[in-house]
């Protein structure tokens, strides 16, 4: 590590603290902010020798000049940028709530700043308590920066009638803007909900850093379906985390899809804390150009009789780099665990790179665990077959690339999401640089 990098890391850390000082959140969040600041100060800056950041240099973050918070403004998005969906919709532009674009009539969904006493109690109980900042450095920064956020709180035995649709838009500004995005989802026993998180940006949003953190607590026998789409413009830096705690017989159905950017790092942490809990998490990552996209997932099986199924597919084009790390940790008493992880990668260019590491750490014997990882290019025989049927090279490779990830898209229960992504991927694959 050269000195310059070290200095710029310190600069970034200092600027981050200044930003934290400028944040004007309610006094009842002060304790969390104080705690976050302490942790941020104490944490070592990750370098090449930090295992969790081995393949993901933070240079672009260090180089960025993040001195000011993003400000709300009217945004000019393409017509098809958002889902057409009958939902409880909250729109944030550069981290600021946009009341006009939102449609929030449900008592279960509220911003932190609008929370009543009871809801504040829920926030105080869960916010910052689900995430383990040791495994996710930027969570402590998120704590230090906490201002507003969204609480989805579904009471016992209730079901949300409409899905919750959270839209985070980044728009261009003269200076680099910083956004701290925070979501807390709490499902009491036997509750059900569906939440869609959608990150997009204006085509011109050239500079900015989004630090996002979603904490999820799923009570006994409750079920959450959660979509997270990171479809921002490629110069926007994004570091995000999703942390899920599952109680007895709880279910979490997660889906995540991301396009790359100069730096995009997404962490998923799932904790099985009650017997019979089930989590499935499917993901698709599509970096291209000169992008970097890093997914780190970690599933902690702390109790017996839980199941996990995780499938990630990636298509890496141009000079892009994808990093995938999938860890499954079975604790000593977590017998009768079933856990599976599969990671498949398709490299479509000579300069593309993928670094994948599926990890198993197992301390119980009566378990069935498997993981698999593959890296390959488009099947030449399949290409030949399609060409011989009269398809152009672009058409053929689009079709094959699509087939590679479609398995995961097809299963999505929410039709609007499926169709939106379908259309989006079609345009993406058809672009010239995605041909083999």
């Amino acid at each position: 590590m050269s000195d310059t990098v070290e200095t710029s890391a310190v600069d970034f850390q200092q600027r981050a603290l200044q930003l934290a000082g400028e944040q004007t959140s309610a006094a009842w969040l002060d304790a969390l902010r104080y705690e976050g600041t302490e942790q941020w100060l104490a944490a070592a800056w990750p370098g090449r020798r930090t295992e969790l950041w081995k393949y993901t240099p933070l240079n672009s973050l260090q180089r960025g000049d993040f001195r000011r918070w993003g400000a709300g403004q009217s945004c000019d998005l393409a017509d098809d940028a958002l889902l057409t969906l009958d939902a409880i919709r909250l729109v944030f532009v550069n981290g600021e709530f946009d009341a006009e674009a939102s449609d929030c009539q449900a008592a279960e969904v509220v911003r932190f700043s609008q929370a009543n006493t009871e809801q504040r109690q829920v926030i105080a109980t869960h916010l910052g308590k689900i995430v383990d900042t040791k495994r996710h450095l930027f969570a402590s920064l998120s704590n230090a920066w906490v201002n507003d956020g969204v609480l989805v709180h579904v009471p016992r035995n209730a079901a949300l009638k409409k899905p919750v649709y959270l839209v985070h838009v980044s728009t261009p500004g003269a200076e680099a803007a910083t956004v701290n995005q925070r979501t807390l989802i709490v499902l009491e026993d036997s509750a059900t909900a569906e939440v869609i998180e959608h990150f997009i940006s204006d085509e011109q949003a050239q500079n900015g850093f989004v630090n996002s953190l979603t904490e999820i607590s799923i009570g006994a026998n409750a079920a959450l379906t959660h979509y997270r789409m990171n479809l921002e413009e490629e110069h926007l830096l994004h570091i995000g985390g999703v942390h899920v705690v599952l109680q007895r017989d709880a279910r979490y159905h997660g889906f995540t899809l991301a396009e790359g950017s100069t730096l995009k790092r997404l962490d998923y942490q799932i904790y099985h804390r009650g017997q019979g809990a089930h989590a499935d998490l499917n993901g698709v990552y599509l970096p291209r150009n000169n992008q970097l996209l890093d997914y780190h997932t970690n599933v902690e099986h702390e109790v017996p009789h839980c199941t996990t199924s995780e499938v990630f597919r990636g298509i890496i084009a141009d000079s892009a780099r994808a990093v995938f790390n999938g860890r499954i940790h079975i604790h000593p008493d977590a017998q009768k665990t079933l856990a599976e992880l599969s990671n498949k990668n398709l490299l479509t260019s000579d300069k593309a790179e993928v670094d994948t590491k599926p990890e198993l750490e197992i301390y119980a014997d009566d378990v069935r665990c498997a993981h698999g990882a593959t890296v390959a290019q488009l099947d030449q025989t399949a290409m030949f077959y399609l060409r011989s049927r009269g398809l152009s090279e672009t058409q053929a490779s689009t079709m094959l690339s699509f087939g590679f990830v479609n398995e995961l898209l097809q299963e999505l229960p929410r039709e609007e999401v499926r169709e939106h992504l379908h259309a989006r991927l079609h345009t993406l694959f058809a672009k010239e640089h995605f041909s083999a």
Partner: protein
Amino acid sequence: MTEQVESLIRKDYSAGFHTSIESETLRPGLDEEVIRFISAKKDEPEWMLDWRLKAFRAWQEMEEPTWAHVHYPTPDFQALSYYSAPKSMANKPKSLDEVDPELLETYAKLGIPLHEQEALAGVAVDAVFDSVSVVTTYRAKLEEAGVIFCSISEAVKRFPDLVKKYLGSVVPQKDNFYAALNSAVFSDGSFVYIPKGVRCPMELSTYFRINEMNTGQFERTLIVADEGSYVSYLEGCTAPMRDENQLHAAVVELVALDDAQIKYSTVQNWYPGDKEGKGGIYNFVTKRGLCQRNARISWTQVETGSAVTWKYPSCILKGDNSVGEFYSVALTNNFQQADTGTKMIHLGKNTRSTIVAKGISAGRSQSAYRGLVRINAGATGARNYTQCDSLLIGDRCGAHTFPYIESKNPSAVIEHEATTSKVSDDQLFLCQQRGLDAEKAVSMIVNGFCREVFKELPMEFAVEAGKLLEVSLEGSVG
């Protein structure tokens, strides 16, 4: 099933005896003086001493690695003795008749044939006792074929050009903490050179024995297979049972030039410590092979011993069309810990590698597979297949998998598969219902689990490995 089986298979570490033999052991501690002493003792040329000192100075700057999934108190490097030799070896005996009978007795007890006429199937053996090579058998016959097989200290004197050219060419002095330590203080080991186009007429083998207390063993093996040659090399190791931990830090370098083939097999049976986890060998080994064009290196290892193992036999596939293979069975029982695996670095075009790793954990042991498959941008058409399976016996052991896969070439095809499961009750029930007792049933299932690896071992070793597994698994079924 529990108690009956436990008593059935509670056998002891049979190689755990100590030979009382007069030894010359250097005072504990490590400084330049010690290195000068070792070098002088071995009558080494100046360049060799410089090489060692360079490594030592690098080592002083380095820190012990902590990334491995093992826990142990850091060895006190100043409390170890870095040289120990049986006194009777002071004037090196010319033939087997002059070797101390106590020493021969030791090897006879271990079942290692040093008498050529008694040796089965003609395996040439280099026997290393603490810090020195005791004897190398079948030398005459090997020399006829042009094969050089001797201890490394002898090679430094007799074949300085070869040693100078290749020593440290695959594992540089500064490679890692233990490799640097080894480069500074290595005492003995084997040197093999197979000339162009020669197929080595017999299996070569080295047998390592730690005997003296408070010593560390640091052997260095260098095998050079010249163009178009072939050699199969076996390595075995044992140590007496002692309460304190002893250190073994070896370096093995393989060089396979164009079209050459090296097959390196290890049966590692260092003393693993007792049932409470007391004592045992710390086995920190660096093994690496370099493949030139069309060359092939194949590592086969059966790891049953050592309290702590830290070992990653690797292949650098530099030449086009070269092939690397790694077959491993790592069995841990009681309090043993193993962090082992391989690295396959694909540099050349159309390079291929296969990794088959089987881990068996029993008792309170922890075993980890850690592997790296790296495909560099130039490795067009590279192919890797990795399979690592773990078998768990007992509910307090752990099995872990840390595979790193890095690919920079789209034409490369990499597959990795890992599974973890236990010896299933159904399988046990079926075997027992067919009249096998529980111990036989477990042993059969485990042997079946490891078959893919055992079939890669030379015949005599495969038999030994199978038996070793049975013994090592003792007390673990329940």
